[in-house]
């Protein structure tokens, strides 16, 4: 009865959490919604109700591992790990930047890292000032692109309007990306910065 033919996908790397139930064979989201990261589980429960999908129909969990906001990433990862453990199904991590690209092929995905920096993929994952992003007239998407629009546009980038859906991370794309490219990451946040105390210690080792 309960063919495990659906995947739960969720991403909490940015201020808007995204959740989707994806049908495995068609790789199509049967339901998805956005929520505040702190309201993730309450909305997730609603999603299953409206989609009329049973938890027992889940064959896996896919979770966005960032880079992004640390506290809200941890909410998503802790939730996803617990669900996978309780349902005894596998869990996969996917880069949130990959999910952004899946929704805007060819674009440069940028996630706001605060403190005047963006998270981006530049050969490797980095945390840099927007002035250092190689844009070359390309399309930039993500909340990092919205936050540093002026800096990016001044250097020839195209940044869609703030309400353009390509800036939003859609969990459905996580599931599709993970299935297609098999870019599975460990289920741990992609921390690109050391904790503050650690950095202070390095800069002032005697402190």
């Amino acid at each position, binding site marked *: 009865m309960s063919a495990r033919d659906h995947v739960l996908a969720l991403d909490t790397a940015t201020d808007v959490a995204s959740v989707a139930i994806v049908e495995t064979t068609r790789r199509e989201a049967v339901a998805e919604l956005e929520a505040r990261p*702190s*309201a*993730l*589980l*309450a909305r*997730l*429960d609603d999603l299953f109700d409206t989609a009329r999908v049973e*938890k027992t129909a889940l064959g896996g969990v896919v979770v966005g591992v960032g880079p992004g906001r*640390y*506290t809200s990433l*941890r*909410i*998503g*990862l*802790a*939730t*996803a*790990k*617990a*669900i996978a*453990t*309780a*349902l005894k199904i596998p869990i996969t991590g996917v880069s949130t930047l990959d999910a952004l690209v899946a929704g805007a092929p060819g674009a440069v995905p940028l996630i706001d890292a605060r403190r005047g920096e963006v998270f981006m993929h530049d050969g490797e994952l980095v945390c840099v000032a927007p002035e250092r992003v190689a844009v070359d007239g390309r399309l930039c998407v993500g909340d990092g692109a919205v936050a540093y629009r002026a800096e990016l546009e001044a250097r020839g980038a195209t940044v869609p309007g703030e309400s353009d859906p390509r800036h939003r991370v859609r969990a459905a794309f996580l599931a599709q990306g993970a299935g297609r490219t098999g870019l599975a990451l460990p289920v*741990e*946040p992609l*921390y690109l910065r050391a*904790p*503050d*105390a*650690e950095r202070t*210690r390095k800069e002032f080792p005697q402190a």
Partner: protein
Amino acid sequence: MSELILGLETSCDETAAALITADGAVLSNVISSQADLHARFGGVVPEVASRRHLELVEPVVSEALVEAEATLSDVAKIGVTQGPGLVGALLVGLSYAKGLSWAAQIPLAPVDHLHGHVASLFLGDDALEPPFLCLLASGGHTLVLVVNDHAGFEVVGGTRDDAAGEAFDKGARLLGLGYPGGPALDRLARTGDPSTHTFPIARVDGLDFSFSGVKTALLYAVRELDETALAERRADLAASYELAIVDALLQRIEQAAEHTHMDTIAVVGGVAANSAFRARLATLGARVAPLPLCTDNGAMIASAARYAPNVSKAGYLAVDAYSSR
């Protein structure tokens, strides 16, 4: 045996999970302390703590289940610390517990950390029955509580500044004992003479405490000594300092007992692990939580959950962490 309660605690620097039975027997109590991780910073770094909790929460819960020879299907209720504590740290445990509850359809009880400390007395064969007077003394709190029933308490006294455990930690740092300092100071004090120095404890109104003055007094005492002299006097200073704090705590409990007309006195929290304090409490006939239940642990959270009202599914799915009461 689908009657177990799983308790999960991540409010500060211990990732802890435990399983207890419906009548309060502790089946497992797994505590993974991050103390070593924070030692080089001289205190708990919230971001470092949160990262570690996320790494540890799953292995700690699974070890608690294994030690109890149970699986999630044996769990009838999940208790989890909602606050007070470090919000980022709390959110890891809370999110994990909520995810388990939702997916495995197990009722969840959000627990107040302080109630958890009190509920450590309701565990085991000789569980303490309310009413009683309770001193909760830890690194984050120093409270005098009247406990009239299993489900809550009334606060009748608190600290105006530092918590008692904080006073021990800060004293240990002044004496160069590293972090966490409480246990190190306890060990050193056993080799010292507590009558060599007098550290006055401020008297404040009501049933409140103040520990900032005694810390300053120690600072001045240490400043007067050169390195050699300090090395010689360190154990005596530790013993005298410890005595001052222990005296203040005991005086207040006795006053509170008189004031509230309560005969039974109990002490919980990390400071209750201090050996000098425990010895004095024994002569007073006070009840002290067993050692593994003094510092933050999952069993006390499970114990509090045992008496917490059931929360509706919609209610617990929406529950959020809080940093202070």
